[in-house]
């Protein structure tokens, strides 16, 4: 049986991963777009993204577009796998109810 993942289970990080996993595997999302989607502050999102990046679940890509810096975020293959395992663990808890 799959185990719950403590890093991912935190509510904001859970929603971040849910949003990123919804994208196609080759796509990445703009930081400000993700912030608006989650309705969190810059600082809050930045802190949670660092935790997920340190765990290797997301990838953060900083680029310049039209001379302006942009930060793009995507779920890594490991992040997608761990997220699916976490969802499976949640579902198994419900089945045992």
């Amino acid at each position, binding site marked *: 049986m799959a185990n719950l*993942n403590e890093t991912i*289970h935190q509510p904001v990080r859970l929603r971040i991963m849910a949003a990123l996993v919804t*994208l196609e595997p080759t*796509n990445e999302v703009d930081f400000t777009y993700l912030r608006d989607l989650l309705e969190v502050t810059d600082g809050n999102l930045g802190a949670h993204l660092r935790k997920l990046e340190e765990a290797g679940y997301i990838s953060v890509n900083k680029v310049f577009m039209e001379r302006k810096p942009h930060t793009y975020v995507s779920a890594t293959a490991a992040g997608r796998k761990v997220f699916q395992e976490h969802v499976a663990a949640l579902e198994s808890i419900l089945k045992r109810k």
Partner: protein
Amino acid sequence: MNISPTEAEEALAAIQAMTQKTRHSIASSGAYIFLIITGIIWLVGFLSTQFLTGQIVGYIWSGTSILGTAVAILLGTRMGKRVRNPSVNASAKRAIIFWVLLVFYAIAAVAIARPSDGKQVTMFIILFTMVGQSAMGLLLSFSATWWALPITALALVGYFLLPGFFYLWMGVLGGGGMIALGLYIRYRW
């Protein structure tokens, strides 16, 4: 780590809500508009071809196509800043070259085959465009691949089974179908 069934239920509900919100946000930020724009161009263009004659038909096709392309480029630029595919950006030049070559091959095929009427020319254009759409979908975004197939099937059915109403068929079912699909993505997806 242990949690109660109630907490698990809440977590799954949060995941479900976020997944739907993300899908809806991406769809409503522009993807559906491309289908609606193309659908409107086809609807107006094919209906004018069916019911009008003379140079006005060419002007209508040119006008709607130029306007639609301009709107699509504007929306594509806006959309590309929110959600992007780095490998797509790197392949953009190759994609442009591919389309230029495809247009060249389409012109060559039409010149060799010498289609006898407008319907045959239209079918050549639709088939080459859908080959290009399928290739782009397979290379860049798999989810964009599938809709070329039903459009091609509709065109073939109209061409072989309803030659007298071909343009009306393409306008209403091809164009109208794209508009309906775009609206479905916008409101139901």
